[in-house]
């Protein structure tokens, strides 16, 4: 009985002494701070990607020569179910 009372007393003392881990007001403040921080990080990412895109796309794209007809290239054992063309483009073989 005395032990239980002591335990209960200690528990309530501990509960009173321990600071609230994340109170509502400070939590909202932290989230507002984090919101502003991640908004800035997002803008920095968008600016970086835009600059990289402008640089990369201004270079143009490379053209490749047709390789020799090695047996492991253009392996096609049967027609596509939708016919000889690609699904999104007309092939130049006919």
């Amino acid at each position, binding site marked *: 009985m005395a032990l239980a009372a002591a335990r209960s007393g200690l528990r309530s003392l501990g509960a009173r002494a321990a600071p609230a881990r994340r109170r509502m007001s400070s*939590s*909202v403040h932290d*989230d*507002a701070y*984090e*919101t502003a*921080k*991640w*908004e800035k*990080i*997002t803008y920095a*990412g*968008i600016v*970086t*990607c835009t600059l*990289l*895109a402008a640089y*990369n796309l201004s*270079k143009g*794209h*490379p053209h*490749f*020569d047709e*390789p*020799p007809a*090695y047996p*492991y*290239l*253009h*392996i*096609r054992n049967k*027609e596509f*179910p939708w016919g000889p063309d690609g699904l999104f483009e007309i092939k130049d073989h006919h």
Partner: protein
Amino acid sequence: MGVKGGLHTTGTKWFMIESQRHSYHLVDPRPWPISGSLGALATTVGGVMYMHSFQGGATLLSLGLIFLLYTMFVWWRDVLRESTLEGHHTKAVQLGPRYGSILFIVSEVMFLFAFFWASSHSSLAPMVEIGGIWPPKGIGVLDPWEIPLLNTPILPSSGAAVTWAHHAILAGKEKRAVYALVATVSLALVSTGFQGMEYYQAPSTISDSIYGSTFFLATGFHGFHVIIGTLFLIVCGIRQYLGHLTKKHHVGFEAAAWYWHFVDVVRLFPFVSIYWWGCI
């Protein structure tokens, strides 16, 4: 005595029953599991028939896909009604979708790991049949420092935007959260656009040796996951706009954010191991 939802009535008087002494949601019977199974069966059988040019294959495949998409729509619509409007998703109930989402993402990691394994298996010791070199003789590869490099920071930037959205939801800034989700989805769409452009310009196809098979399977499935994640985030954006998500209850958004971080982190692996190392 009539029963309607959680309320019982005797004559004109209504009173709450006190039979539910637990915090779990006992779901009403729905036809969606069996309709989803039938849709999946029609899709796979129709798909095989279509690929082998059987008559009616395309029709069965289309019907199966329509059935499957319809089931997904109505099933998830019901879950949203149960959680958002009927309040059945208690803290205990929310644990289910949380564990489910985590296990689903773990299974997705294993799924994509298999494709990177296949690529590494084929490229680390190239067979004599493809010239004993990687990339195989005659295969033209994309310059990793052009579109692949450009596409790599777009997804982590989108990941930053979804983190912005998460903090905005927690801070109760509803409009900022919608803007952040619009930014997330826009970056995702730009990434998919560049992936399409890269495929269009690619000198090889999926039928060009083991290089084409592993390259397009790994990058294509990653791109497919980007599209799924984008749809998931669009749904979250609409729900945030409609006021479904609160500071304390936004499990659907959290699942979408976890999935999106998985997709943006996984992008680094194909860039390093397939685009960059694969062209050295």
